[in-house]
């Protein structure tokens, strides 16, 4: 079983003011990550909300358990796959955050066929 220690930078990674863009932060959304309560905003993907909450480790490599972030954010690389509301292998970079979502990346069992 691969265990995660939650590490948060505690730093706010949101852009407050931008010369070109405006970001709607109208509705706060509650979700849990590995059982811990977190908040994002309506329109966030799960991945964006996690980064904003200081989470950089999205998965662990299967054999050596090396921490992995995500690489592409558009659904190609697979590094951000997590279990969302009980469904495995959800691309968190392409999935919008919903109220009370249960997000987990602790893998219970990994089977590797050599």
């Amino acid at each position, binding site marked *: 079983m691969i265990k995660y220690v939650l590490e948060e930078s505690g730093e706010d990674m949101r852009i407050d003011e931008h*010369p070109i863009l405006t970001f709607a932060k109208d509705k706060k959304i509650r979700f849990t990550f590995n059982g811990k309560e977190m908040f994002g905003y309506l329109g966030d993907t799960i991945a964006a909300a996690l980064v904003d909450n200081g989470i950089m480790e999205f998965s662990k490599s299967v054999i050596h358990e090396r921490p992995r972030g995500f690489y592409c954010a558009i659904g190609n690389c697979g590094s951000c796959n997590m279990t969302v509301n009980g469904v495995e292998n959800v691309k968190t970079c392409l999935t919008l955050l919903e109220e009370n979502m249960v997000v987990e990346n602790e893998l219970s069992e990994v089977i590797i066929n050599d």
Partner: protein
Amino acid sequence: MIEKTGVATIEMIKSKFPKKEVLTRPKAIIECYTEIPCNPCSTSCPFDAIYIGKDINQIPRIDFDKCTGCSSCISACPGLAIMVAMIKDGKAYFKIPYELLPLPVRGEKWTALNRYGRVLDKPCFIENVMVTKKNDKTAIVTVSIEQPYLYEFVTVGKKL
């Protein structure tokens, strides 16, 4: 060299400026040194002063007799490579494109930067800041600095 650093040599810079006598009126300085497929400077000019032609890869050529320094091309240039320069009473005046925050405010004193991003010895003064819908979030900032920095000044750094 520009291919390695992104910085033009003084000869290249001077080749884009008209004679100093001409700069008693504001003129557009187009720092586009390499051929890229792009022509908004030409199509945005209300006075037909900037010529590119059918092959949009050509480097823009400017007719300083026709250019009024109106600054339409500054915000049209996707490369933020155009400024308007003028000399008056021993000072160089520039209109530059600016897409960063915080925006300068008229009356403020800011550091002046050269093309390497180094701070010049003398500061510059913010004369005007124009934000219009047409310029689409590219602010046009008018600044003045002592005339010897005519070929060195390129943008503003930090508020002093």
